[in-house]
């Protein structure tokens, strides 16, 4: 399989690098939700433009925002439920 973002070899939707960025996005959402009271979509929008966000994190955020929102919400919820 190929990474949906960069085309590198991958085992899932994302390559190892974008997967690490995606995992970090999931991991830190709780902190954002608690302090900023933002929805997942708002969170991604903030991350996409934040000057300190990593490049791959921004790419994942952009990709998730651009892809089907219901699908990504489902993925996100499933990940958080774990």
């Amino acid at each position, binding site marked *: 399989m190929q990474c949906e973002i960069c085309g*590198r*070899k991958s085992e899932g939707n994302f390559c*190892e*690098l974008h997967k*690490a*960025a995606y995992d*970090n*996005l999931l*991991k*830190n959402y709780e*902190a*954002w939700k*608690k*302090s*900023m009271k933002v929805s997942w979509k708002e969170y991604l929008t903030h*991350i996409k433009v*934040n000057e*300190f*966000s*990593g*490049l*791959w*994190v921004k790419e994942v955020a952009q990709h998730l925002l651009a892809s089907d929102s219901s699908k990504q919400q489902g993925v996100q919820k499933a990940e958080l439920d774990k």
Partner: protein
Amino acid sequence: MLCEKPSTAERIAKALDENGKPQKKETDRVPYYETFRVGKRLIVVAALGHLYTVAPKVTDRNVYPVFEFDWVPRYTAERDARDTKKWVEVITNLSKGAQEYILATDYDIEGATLGYTILKYACGEKDKEAKRMKFSTLTTEELRKSYDELFEHIEFPTIEAGVCRHFLDAMYGINLSRAMTVAAKQYSGKYLTLSTGRVQGPTLKFLVDREKKINTFVPIPFWAIKTSVEINGQVFEVEYEKAKMQSREEAEAVINACLGKKGKISKMEVKKFHQNPPVPFDLGALQAEAYSFFKYTPRRTSDVAERLYLEALISYPRTSSQKLPPTINSRAILELLANEPKYTSLAHQLLSEKKLVPNEGKREDSAHPSIYPTGILPSKALGDPERKLWDLIVRRFMAVFSKPALKQSSKVTITVDGYSFFLHGKQVLEEGWMVFYKPFIRAEDVILPPLEKGQEIAFKEVVVEDKFTKPPVRYNPSSLLKKMEDEGIGTKATRAGIIDTLYTRGYVGGERASISELGLDVTNILERYCPEVVSISFTREMEKNMEEIQNEKEKKDVVIAKATIRLEPVLTEMKKHQETMGQELTEAAKKAQMQQRVVGSCLQCGTGKLVIVYSRRTGKRFLGCTGFFKGQCKVSFPLPQTGTVKPVSKDCGVCGWPMIQYQTKGKRPWVFCVRPDCPSKEARR
């Protein structure tokens, strides 16, 4: 007498000649000197750095693994070393009939190895009978002393370690680089310059690991309070007791409690402490300081220091020592430095002391003391980098002999409604060593006015600041060198060069060493198929082994055998995955090549990228949008047809289109907007 470089040969010949006028001779444009000392006729000849190199017996670049290596003349193995042939021939001829052989190359692992190979292979096995000159400066006095007290033998344990290093580096570098290039060539049919090595791989891995942390970083919001107070008309910044707050409400509660109120000083702490002078410069510390003040890369500092050494202005710079032994005669050096007007009063201050005791560091180097000025003043005006570095070394040398500075730090606690704020002051009470080290001091005083407990303080500003956690910073060449030093990989002589190689290979770019896609992909591929290659533990173990060889606790052949055993399965594994590795490496290289052509985003279509394109029909270059290939965008811009054009990752401040850098030979680079009708070009029209 064999020296390392022509300039050293000239200096040594001059120093040793009874009249200070050696006769310069030349054969085939290779200079050497005839000099007379105590009735002896000395022929002083220089090498041109290494004249021999370790090369595999199998020269076909498509064959690996190769484990049989030999010393061969460099001109037979390296295309750009053809010039060294005549040097080998001249040295061979001059050595015939000599009654005595003296090695006067740099007294370190490379100098000894270089001399050993020439004595052994060019002079006909004269390594065992050669005597050795040891010196740390090129001053006449030291060179003469060194000649009078020749060592009976060259330093064989050091040479064993040096030879071992050369064999290991060749074995790893050649096999791994061949494995990579062969894999890529078999897949694509094209030759790609890809390399890795025993130290290069782990060094690149440091950068990749840091890059991964930066690129996967998710900033977390927090709130801080920015506060300032006004005392006697002066404004001071104060810090709230809690640097980070997890919610805006928490921060606003503090603000509300403080607004319109005055704080009271509840506690005052004043500490006086001594700050010792800095320790003498080893090469790493000099490189760090030169980067910090002059932004010189470690390689540049090393080169400039080498030039100062060859001019006899400083001692041998490739040292890891932080010691200044009494034998260097610091007092005599200061007396000489006092002849330079800008150091006169400082040097006299130190000379008025009865005893000169340096504040030494812990690191030792059996071969050389730390870097110090010889006291000799420049006979001609120095270039800017040499002048700056020499000044830094002279001032550091004086500073290490001076007294500690006396400093005072104060912390005043201001309380409002149970919330505490801290006002910090710092002041130098007695400058001590700082007087000598100016202008290379960064500390700034914050002098507080007289204050007392219970005093009321008015807040000038209390505001909430929205902040985010920040990613770790990228390495710069200096901090990367420090990391290599701390991790114990490479040597003081090789580290700067390895960092340079990472840049020239295109793995790393920019002042803040940022990893290119190629560097990232190459490391990921190596990590996947042969993690040993980028493993720091393996490299560190090898460095330790080599140190043990130098200390005569380990044998060279044992270390090489151990390394071979570890490398063999790695190469077998690489061969097994040759095809997939080749495909991945080729794609990575293609992507990197493409990246070098991308100038920036196309503002017309918003989705395409502007790339440098060469017309198949005319061969001319221009900028075109990648959207053209999808039939979405037809934007194109002309480019100059001569000189080099490079992307600069910068957008025009006036129109927002990307900018490019254009340079023709001998001219300064010119950065301009890609749009021919951009208003920023109005002034040039």
